[in-house]
């Protein structure tokens, strides 16, 4: 089966001359449709860079990225923007919301670019998503009037507005306390169950254990892959999975 995203021999470096550093060093990776994948690794290993490369937010030096059969690396600026708007959703560590807009407008922002005429329907959809994610009633609030956890849900609602095939998360729980982080992960798991592919970058073992596959990156290459298996929070407190993953990570770090 054709993967939803395929990265082939991707290289990406930063800096020039003697200060040049290869952050992605010929990395190849496949993400299947409907998968829930976590990318882990030490700081500076290239996790976030891989995420930005696979989502077309950043160009690659060599190699290529195929999304749903299309060569992302060959797309022009506008085509990339269209691809992100219509097929992808993003959740960042910080809420990345616009201060000028209230919460509802922030959620509507990407979809309204094309769908102004369907404003009423889109507003209805945003309201429904807000209800689902537990932030109903905050529509008209300024973003300064919501908590970090609430704002992250706003970010998730915005990501879901375009019915994306995949959601990219760059440390989506990194700035949250453990209660909020758990709620966000529960939400993402729910979204995943509806068939949406999710690719997360995380440092948090607790977060990674809730995914189906963990990729470990070291020095710009995939150093290993771990399959925690399907997680069912109703039957499993997750402790055993966390211990197993921690042991594997320790092993990887020694490699």
């Amino acid at each position: 089966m054709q993967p939803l995203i395929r990265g082939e021999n991707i290289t990406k470096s930063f800096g020039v001359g003697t200060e040049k550093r290869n952050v992605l060093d010929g990395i190849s990776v496949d993400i299947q449709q409907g998968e829930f994948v976590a990318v882990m690794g030490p700081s500076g290993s290239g996790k976030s860079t891989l995420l930005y490369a696979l989502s077309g937010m950043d160009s690659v030096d060599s190699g290529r990225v195929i999304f749903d059969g299309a060569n992302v690396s060959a797309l022009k600026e506008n085509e990339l923007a269209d691809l992100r708007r219509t097929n992808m959703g993003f959740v960042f560590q910080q809420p990345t919301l616009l201060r000028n807009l209230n919460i509802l407008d922030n959620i509507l922002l990407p979809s309204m670019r094309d769908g102004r005429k369907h404003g009423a329907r889109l507003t209805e959809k945003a309201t429904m998503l807000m209800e689902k994610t537990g932030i109903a009633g905050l529509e008209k609030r300024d973003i300064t009037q919501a908590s970090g956890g609430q704002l992250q849900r706003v970010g998730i609602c915005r990501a879901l507005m375009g019915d994306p095939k995949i959601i990219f998360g760059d440390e989506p729980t990194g700035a949250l306390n453990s209660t909020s982080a758990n709620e966000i992960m529960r939400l993402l798991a729910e979204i995943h169950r509806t068939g949406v592919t999710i690719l997360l970058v995380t440092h948090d073992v607790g977060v990674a254990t809730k995914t189906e596959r963990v990729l470990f990156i070291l020095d710009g290459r995939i150093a290993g892959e771990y399959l925690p298996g399907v997680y069912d929070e109703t039957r499993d407190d997750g402790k055993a999975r966390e211990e197993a993953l921690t042991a594997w990570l320790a092993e990887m770090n020694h490699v």
Partner: protein
Amino acid sequence: MYLRILRNDIRRSKAITLTTMLFVAAATMLVALAAVLVVNLSGAIDTLMTQSKTPHFTQMHAGELDTARLAAFAQQNQAVADFQTLEFLNVDGAQFVFESGSLATSVQDNGLAMQSETFDFLLNLDGEVITVADGEIYVPITYIQGGIARVGETVTVAGKRFTIAGALRDSQMQPLLSSSKRFLVSHNDFTALKQFGSVEYLIEFRLHNMDRLGAFEAAYTAAGLEANGPTLTYALFRLFNGLADGLMIAVILLVSVLVIAIAFLCIRFSLLAKIEDDYREIGVMKAIGLRVADIKRIYLTQYVAIAAVGSLLGYGLSLLFRDALLANIRLYMGESANATFAPLLGIFSVTLVFVAISAYVNGVLGRFRHISPAEAVRFGVSQEKAGGGRHFRLSANRWLGTNMFLGIKDVLARKSLYVTMLTVLVLAAFIIIVPQNLHNTIASDTFITYMGVGNSDLRIDIQQTDHIAEKAAEIAAVMANDQAIARFVVLTTQTFRVQLNDSSDERLKVELGDHSVFPLTYAEGRAPAAANEIALSVLNASEMGKTVGDVITLVIDGRTSTLTVCGTYSDLTNGGKTAKAVFSDPSADTMWSVITAELADPTLLDEKIAAYADRFAFAKVSDIDEYIRQTYGGTINAMGAASYAAIGVALALTVLITLLFIRMLVAKDRYAIAVMKAFGFTNADIRAQYVARSVFVLLLGMLLGTLLANTLGERLVGAVMASFGAASFTFIVNPAFAYLLSPLLMASAVLASTFFGTLDAGHIKISENIKD
């Protein structure tokens, strides 16, 4: 370390550094030039007037002169130090024939004079009193400079050949504003030519103490001495001499204020963009314990360096241009006594600009104090408060495109940020529209209504000659029998004593005749119809504190008469102080007569003008359009040139400020741009949002600018015009220009600048600006 940071920063932002430096250089150059010119001009005027021994009081008079009576008055008046009467032989311009042509078309009253023996000397270019030999002539410097005459060439005056021995400086009559020009010839030559012109007398006094001039003027009037021509004083000569160059200095100062303002805006925008760029670093520096003063120093060093280099460059340039600008002052007035102070004042003014710029930069950098290290480190950009436009919601938007909505929303949410751009655009619209409207108004046919004359075809002026009344009657008799003349009127201006409320009296010029033939537009009331009625020009009315219905007391034919003010009218001629009435007084001094006529067939105008000019050589015959052109042609042309220059300045200002402003915004909005790009907005979308912001501010700016131009601008111009004598001044607007072309020009300037200003937005990388 500072030097390294400085070098790197300048390398990174070459264009903005260069622009700022150039504006600083231009500003300092202009300020230094203005300072140097002021010192030199005031000094040179003093030198000229001291060397010339300019009279403190001059009364011009044509006709009989009772010298004995004048001498007795001078002797009895304690204030008088010196007294003389000089003759000025008014010769028709056509009688002056130079090798390059005659003065036939000159609007000046050209005439011959002899050198004075006691004061009011005519000087050569070395500032020495000229001694002229028979057969020699000294020519007013304006004609030498204008290339009409050359030293060494010959000139024929009324058939007599003279050699041009040199240029002369005349502290009394050389300014262009003075309507007469004196040519200096020897006593013998003057006497020989006397029959070819009319003699006008200059009755001149020098006083012991200039402070007593007011009292002296009153005493002269009270004594009822010769006075059928203009009265001029030392202060007026000083003003006339300084006016042309003074205006140039005023313009330079005005432009330098504008340039300094632009330099400040350049610095402000580039500095703010830089602070936004370095926001995180500044936060980090504060977080690790650097003091605000330490951080400020890094930035201050750069701008102080730019200001220093710019100031030095400006001062250097001022030295280059100084001589060219001083040439005119030196030529017309000679060296200034305090010329040595000029370079010092130049340096002082340049230093002042430099200190002001440094202080301004220091002030702008004061915002470092408000940067929260936590916020800066966390967000990397300033988190200004979003306020306003809260009810302008995307979810409720059904009409505007999303990009346009976001653009307008941004302006509404961050109003304070856009105020500067709005102000510049309002100013630009104002600067474009007001001079254009003014030019359009004074160039229009209806402008004659401000000149105190009714509309007619032909105008004959009889002045500075003897027997004016007889000459006017002679022309009137011919006109009455001329089939080609549909109607005409003789209006004679005479002077009368008017008794004021404070029991003092003043001389009033009253134009007498039938004012119903060519009626003019009255600001208030109507034309005088009865012998006990008088209409006043608005300046006279306001100076005397009279309105329609009030009465004034005039001494007519030796008796006091009470006249009712029946109307007021605009008059820009004769200093704006005239009056109109229908009574007659054969005993009063006649100053001049004007005959205006309308032709039965206007196509015969040129023919009739030629015929009357030929027949009545003593009169000046002109068509009304030509009269306006001669009176205001220079002003109209200068105003036209100024209005086009204003358009250029305003557009350049718009382009520069919009460009700098948009670049600053893009730097400030990096994060928001990256977020929008991450969620699928294209570069074109981002640009469209900035265009929407610009267009929104532009529309507001043009609307406010146009409104201001047509209200405040009209009032300002009206106030200036009122000081010259025009009441209820209103703009005559050329709608195609004011409401179509000027908005189009401004829109093009703003759109082009926004386009270039947003080029950087395309280079903003999502990963670099969003990555946590």
